[in-house]
């Protein structure tokens, strides 16, 4: 079978692209060097979150979050889809002002959110420390187990005629000597190796998961200070970001580092991350951790993923650079990529995601 499209990388983005293209009738070949969803997809938290850092980021995450809601009923139970909602936690009055700003931003764009005061927050999350100012509750945000979703999307693609070639690593696009097939580079932080010039940097993160403590945390909790720390480009940073898993486990994040390509756990970062978590949830220190790990986000200078035709490589399309939002934005990425390949009208403007370099 000669493929119409070759998708390199079966992380959640590649899997979603393969599913969408196969659904549209293209003959798809998926090439994955390791495990399906075994890279950043497995390392991340699986938080489906609508973001508001920029209009383009909002448009992409909001579009994608609605696609997740549509997909939710079809997902296998192992995908652990849970509409837990996000609580953006405000520590002080300054951050409460940010809560109100976010509330009106979302309200103007049709996203329902609620402002929680200190007392509401205490009731919603009794293990948070007392004295926090409040929070913004985004009820439609959700949680999934991303590797299972990636596998599900690959299964869907294969039901529509896609073929999976696992264990094959492409080192150079020239290895895919198929003059007619289009190629989708969905290799995340590795994308520049196959598409030289693409501006993507790995941004290392640490996570830790605990034993089962059902009810200890009820929503995805993210400190609003996250907005400050996640955007500082030069310094290593940590933020309070914890998530309840369906198993009752608590997933604890997060950290961000540039300039490290070593996947080893750095105890200095893990310590900072856990100290930050304990600052918001003092009793978190009494939980037993069972595993810690690291992963590499694929970050771009513009904080937006690349979704579109490569400016340098004919027949190559880029779907990489999703940083910490790849789970959220995977489904919309697949739609927007297929829209361009098939000349369909996209649901949102494409320009902000044009590949750079």
């Amino acid at each position: 079978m000669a493929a119409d499209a070759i998708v390199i990388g079966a992380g959640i983005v590649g899997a979603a692209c393969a599913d969408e293209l196969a659904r549209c009738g293209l003959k798809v070949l998926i090439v994955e060097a390791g495990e399906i969803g075994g890279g950043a997809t497995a390392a991340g938290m699986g938080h489906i979150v609508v973001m508001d850092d920029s209009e383009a980021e909002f448009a992409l995450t909001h579009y994608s979050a609605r696609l997740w809601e549509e997909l939710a009923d079809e997902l296998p139970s192992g995908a652990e889809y849970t509409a837990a909602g996000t609580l953006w936690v405000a520590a002080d009055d300054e951050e409460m002002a940010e809560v109100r700003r976010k509330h009106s931003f979302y309200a103007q764009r049709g996203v329902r959110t609620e402002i929680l005061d200190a007392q509401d927050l205490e009731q919603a999350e009794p293990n948070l420390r007392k004295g926090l100012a409040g929070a913004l509750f985004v009820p439609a945000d959700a949680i999934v187990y991303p590797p299972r979703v990636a596998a599900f999307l690959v299964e869907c693609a294969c039901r529509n005629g896609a073929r999976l070639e696992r264990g094959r690593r492409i080192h150079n696009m020239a290895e895919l000597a198929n003059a007619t097939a289009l190629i989708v580079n969905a290799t995340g932080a590795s994308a520049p190796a196959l598409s030289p010039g693409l501006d993507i940097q790995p941004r290392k993160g640490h996570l830790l998961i605990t034993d089962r403590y059902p009810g200890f945390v009820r929503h995805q909790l993210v400190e609003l200070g996250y907005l400050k720390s996640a955007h500082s480009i030069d310094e290593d940073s940590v933020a309070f970001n914890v998530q309840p898993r369906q198993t009752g486990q608590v997933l604890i994040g997060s950290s961000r580092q540039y300039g490290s390509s070593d996947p080893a756990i750095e105890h200095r970062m893990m310590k900072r991350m856990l100290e930050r978590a304990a600052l918001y949830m003092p009793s978190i220190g009494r939980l037993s951790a069972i595993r810690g790990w690291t992963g590499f986000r694929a970050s771009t200078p513009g904080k937006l993923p690349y979704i579109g035709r490569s400016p340098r490589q004919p027949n190559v399309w880029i779907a990489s650079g999703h940083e910490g939002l790849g789970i959220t934005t995977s489904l919309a990425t697949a739609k927007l990529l297929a829209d361009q390949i098939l000349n369909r009208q996209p649901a949102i403007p494409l320009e902000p995601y044009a590949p750079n370099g």
Partner: protein
Amino acid sequence: MPQTADVRINGKEFTVAEGTSVAAAVLNAGYSMRTSIHGEPRAALCGMGICYECRVTIDGCQHRKSCQVLCATGMEIETT
């Protein structure tokens, strides 16, 4: 130095010799330690802190490895 420790296991009082591990106290009292996620009773297997099968709640703190904790007077131990 006291020669014994008085603990409560699932609400009942037990007196054990000083130096008794919580695992030994729980087993002597006739309880298993925890219930697996599939509903099976579990108890200490390795006895040296590796297998995690002996986890109990001690003084409100869940998932303590009972083979690695010595009984102390006043301790509240709960199995599941």
